[in-house]
């Protein structure tokens, strides 16, 4: 067994807590200061524990302040601040887009190219994060806030305003939300609604009364019929990782993982071997990093990456000892 360290971490922690309280809450007298200096000089871990204890102690104030603050849902943005939201939205566009912005201000239509994910802040403080190759149209009126998803996928964080309901329309599906977080995606003829926080009501245009979809549930409207499913929180998080510029695969097949990677990557990853394409894969990648994905997959499956004009080919190594 390998032994690392001296095993007195706990003692150090206790001393650090005592010193952190003394030095934060009142000035130290001379002899105390000398003892603290000596203690800190005795080893760098004492210093680290001391810093950490002070950081934790100061962090408590932040949480207490959160506790005493009115709930954020109750706070509505003052009208005078609306222009600030526009300004933030505009700066976000500039920051996130780079080139090729397709933002038609009059029509309120925003779209993204293959390799971009973009966040919009709307005038009421609601946020829309648009996945790659997606388009959304913003139609805000006095009595309602409506967004129309034209293609792709978007996630919404809705500012509470019960006087102005928030609707997202995607094909025949209309989602109504009041102060909540959810995402809507369109793929082929399916519309998928995933709720991260709160409740939304989904109307399907098929005469059935609207259904309520709760936190960590998904609703899929497909030509073959609609269904509702309960998701694990981790699964919801995983599905929405694109918003953070990440792709998270957790037991996905290499085929579907590479399709997702290729959605954003300028150089496609191609897997010719069907048995390799079926292999399950776990990993986290930044959007756009097709190369990193290919080499990590190659490492995991003892394969190789061969670069050809049409993309990065991932293949099995011949005579590999593990196959």
């Amino acid at each position, binding site marked *: *067994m*390998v*032994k*690392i*360290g*001296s*095993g007195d*971490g*706990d003692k*150090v*922690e*206790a001393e650090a*807590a*005592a010193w*952190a*309280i*003394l030095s934060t*809450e*009142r000035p130290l007298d001379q002899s105390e200061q000398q003892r603290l200096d000596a203690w800190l000089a005795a080893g*760098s*871990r*004492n*210093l*680290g*524990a001391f*810093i*950490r*204890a*002070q*950081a*934790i*102690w*100061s*962090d*408590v*104030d932040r*949480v207490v302040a*959160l*506790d005493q603050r009115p709930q*954020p849902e109750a706070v509505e943005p003052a009208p005078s601040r609306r222009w600030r939201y526009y300004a933030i939205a505009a700066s976000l566009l500039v920051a996130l887009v780079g080139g090729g912005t397709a933002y038609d201000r009059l029509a309120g239509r925003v779209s993204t190219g293959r390799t971009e994910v973009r966040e919009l802040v709307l005038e009421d403080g609601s946020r829309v994060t648009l996945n790659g190759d997606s388009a959304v149209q913003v139609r805000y009126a006095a009595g309602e806030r409506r967004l129309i998803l034209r293609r792709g996928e978007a996630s919404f964080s809705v500012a509470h305003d019960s006087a102005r309901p928030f609707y997202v329309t995607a094909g025949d599906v209309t989602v109504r939300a009041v102060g909540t977080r959810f995402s809507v995606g369109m793929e082929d003829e399916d519309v998928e609604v995933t709720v991260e926080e709160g409740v939304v009501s989904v109307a399907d245009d098929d005469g059935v009364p609207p259904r309520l979809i709760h936190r960590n549930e998904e609703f899929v409207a497909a030509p073959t019929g609609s269904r509702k499913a309960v998701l694990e929180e*981790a699964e919801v*998080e*995983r599905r929405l*990782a694109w918003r*953070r510029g*990440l792709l*998270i*695969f*957790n037991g996905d097949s290499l085929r579907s993982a590479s399709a997702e990677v290729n959605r954003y990557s300028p150089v496609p990853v191609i897997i010719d071997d069907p048995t390799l394409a079926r292999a399950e*894969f*776990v*990993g*986290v*990648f930044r959007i756009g990093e097709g190369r990193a994905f290919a080499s*990590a997959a190659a*490492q*995991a*499956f*003892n394969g190789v990456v061969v670069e050809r004009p049409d993309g990065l080919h991932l293949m099995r190594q011949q005579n590999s000892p*593990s196959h």
Partner: protein
Amino acid sequence: MDHAGRIRWFAREVLPHEPDMRRWLSVRLRGLESCDLDEVVQEAYARIWGAELEKILNPRAYLFVTARHIVGEQLRRSRIVSIELMADLEVLNIVDDDEGAERRLSGQEEIARLHRIIEKLPPKCRQAFRMKKFDELPQREIAARMGVAESTVEKHLAKALRVISKEMNAEPGAAEVRARGEDRFWRWGQGRG
């Protein structure tokens, strides 16, 4: 940045990533039963404290890399480590993330966690902590109200801080998904090596 500013920087930029870092490290140090994570964490804080904080662009990645170096140094010193483990430490793949992405605990969850911890404190300790942090009373006032010496109040507060710090280590802080993802991916990579 003054001392208080640097402490706040640690609270804001390092503390939220510590649970992830501990988990990330503990997975990698599975074979090393008596490896003391607390000591690695303490050493990492000390080293980051010595750095120019303004220049650290990605504190999360910085924390992870620092911890990795510390473990690496200790392993080299111990001289009886498997080659695989050393190789593993060299190739660790750190996902550097946008700021805030891992802070999955919502404000509500943080508040609930704090109250949960407060409930675990011994009564006197809890009373002193509440008066200090919630009522923002000066130490002298707390001592007077509780009818004890100021040094006793300091002991109660230190005890409270100690408990909070311990609970923080025990809580699954954030980024469960990714931690799991990295973990499994990691084992796969290892198994095939």
